[in-house]
């Protein structure tokens, strides 16, 4: 009971902070900040070096895609939704395509489902390695960052070989995939996977033995699971608290019913456990890709369907690298969607991350905030921190005292 009370109080503080700002000890973090490659704004209120309050302001990467999707046809929409995010672009197109497929009753060929699994898992490896490299960057360990990004290029090369592109793959289409696997791909995949297995084992050793990394990540960002679960986090953030929840197992899609992922959990709920869970997932992905490429069935890669989609509400979700990615599609029988709603993992996780930060020091901010692997491009489709310089500090400080929320509105307009 008391725990619930304290959560409620803490939440009230967070949300009250969204409206009223206290000028003392306010440190802006973003929207353009070296730690975040993406623009989002966190106001961090400090007492010395201790964080007492984190106030997110999201919307710096909002573009209005949900509205734009409504003006595209079903096929055009696939290419738009995958440009919501450059890191989990295949997850977006896959989630959209599966939601539409759930409305149409057409079967996806078995070979296409296997290919989807391979690309989705390659993307997971790429995303997790990218994130781990950035953890190195955030903790000031540039060497680790460079090494991991070098190894990540192997995955990108594979993705390029199969789909023809490094980032935006444009590969999934309704009831299948757009191209078949190239020849000799099996050998390339096996070579790359052998190399990656070796490297992942090495990184596992590094993060669990290198003292400077351990001091920066062990026990950092601890949050009580009972409190956190009420904030509805998803993905590795939820799994690091001991909840065995993974869309790939709970609601199998693609070929996950035949090649079952091994869901790893931890009960430490700190940044180190997040790293270990993600590395374990990379290993598991390697295993699944190898299983899929050896057991891949032959056959067609897509079926031809009419350009309209029957009336109805479709719901679909996939396990993107960051967690559950949810799509809601409403069709009225026409050649374009009436409403597409996208809930990205980052929007679900951001509240938990701000709770995790409280009580830590400023030095932990980049590690914890990015520990959830934020993808603000995703969140802001519909939704990061502030590098205001000293000269504005004094102006805004005055304004804060005087106007509270008024300042907030004006700040968007911007005063020099």
């Amino acid at each position: 009971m008391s725990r619930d009370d304290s959560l409620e109080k803490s939440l009230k503080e967070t949300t009250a902070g969204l409206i009223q700002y206290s000028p003392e000890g306010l440190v802006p973090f973003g929207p353009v900040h070296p730690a975040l490659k993406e623009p989002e704004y966190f106001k961090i209120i400090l007492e010395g070096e201790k964080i007492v309050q984190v106030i997110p302001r999201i919307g710096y990467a909002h573009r209005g895609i949900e509205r734009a999707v409504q003006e595209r046809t079903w096929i055009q929409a696939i290419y738009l939704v995958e440009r919501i995010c450059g890191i989990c672009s295949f997850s977006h197109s896959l989630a959209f395509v599966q939601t539409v497929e759930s409305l149409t009753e057409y079967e996806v060929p078995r070979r296409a489902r296997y290919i989807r699994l391979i690309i989705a898992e390659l993307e997971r490896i790429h995303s997790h390695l990218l994130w781990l490299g950035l953890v190195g960057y955030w903790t000031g360990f540039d060497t680790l960052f460079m090494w991991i990004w070098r190894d990540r290029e192997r995955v990108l090369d594979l993705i390029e070989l199969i789909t023809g592109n490094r980032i935006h793959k444009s590969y999934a289409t309704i009831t299948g995939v757009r191209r078949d696997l190239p020849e000799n791909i099996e050998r390339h995949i096996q070579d790359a996977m052998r190399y990656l297995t070796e490297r992942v084992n090495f990184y596992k050793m590094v993060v669990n033995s290198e003292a400077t990394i351990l001091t920066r990540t062990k026990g950092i960002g601890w949050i009580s699971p009972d409190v956190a679960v009420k904030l509805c986090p998803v993905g590795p953030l939820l799994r690091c608290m001991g909840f065995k929840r993974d869309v790939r197992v709970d609601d199998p899609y693609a070929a996950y019913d035949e090649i079952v992922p091994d869901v790893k959990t931890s009960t430490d709920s700190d940044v180190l456990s997040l790293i270990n869970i993600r590395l374990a997932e990379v290993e598991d992905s390697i295993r699944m890709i190898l299983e899929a490429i050896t057991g891949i069935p032959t056959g067609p890669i897509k079926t031809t369907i009419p350009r309209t989609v029957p009336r109805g509400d479709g719901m679909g979700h996939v396990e993107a690298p960051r967690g559950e990615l949810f799509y809601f599609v409403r069709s009225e029988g026409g050649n374009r969607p009436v409403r597409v709603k996208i809930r990205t993992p980052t929007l679900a996780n951001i509240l938990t991350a701000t709770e995790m930060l409280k009580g830590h020091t400023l030095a932990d901010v980049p590690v914890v905030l990015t520990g959830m692997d934020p993808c603000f491009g995703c969140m802001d489709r519909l939704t990061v921190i502030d590098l205001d310089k000293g000269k504005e500090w004094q102006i805004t400080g005055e304004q804060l005292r005087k106007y509270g929320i008024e300042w907030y509105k004006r700040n968007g307009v911007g005063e020099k």
Partner: protein
Amino acid sequence: MTESLLSKFDELKNIKISKERNKIIIEAEPDDIVKTCRIITNKLGIHHLVTITGVDEGEKICIIYHFWSEKNFINVLTKIEKTSPRISSITSIVPGAIFYEAEIHDMLGVFFEGNPMMNSHLLLPDTYPLDMPPPLRKEANIEEIRRRMNLE
């Protein structure tokens, strides 16, 4: 399945439950929404709110609360009048709903009573013209909005 579910909601009137594949749809009155969500979290023990969707259906705005349990989506669907889009907030039951409600407030102009983020923008820029309809309403004219925000 639906019958056993229905028995859980015996304290509410006007409730309709249907099932289609892995989607369970519970249609509820707007006034009962807090009660319905409380039953789902307390009696059924489902805590994972996936998201809240708002759809502009012309005269009404349809709000769908998507919960996920085991193998099913549990959708609580309610419809409110577009002329007075107000509904009570479920943040006291599911604290994680804050941002989802604020998003719908931004995008469709629905006011959630009890949500503390109702007088600030979550996603939209602060220059968004206040007299224009929110962007996901059917009557919103994108070109007009762009002109008003000096983007042309």
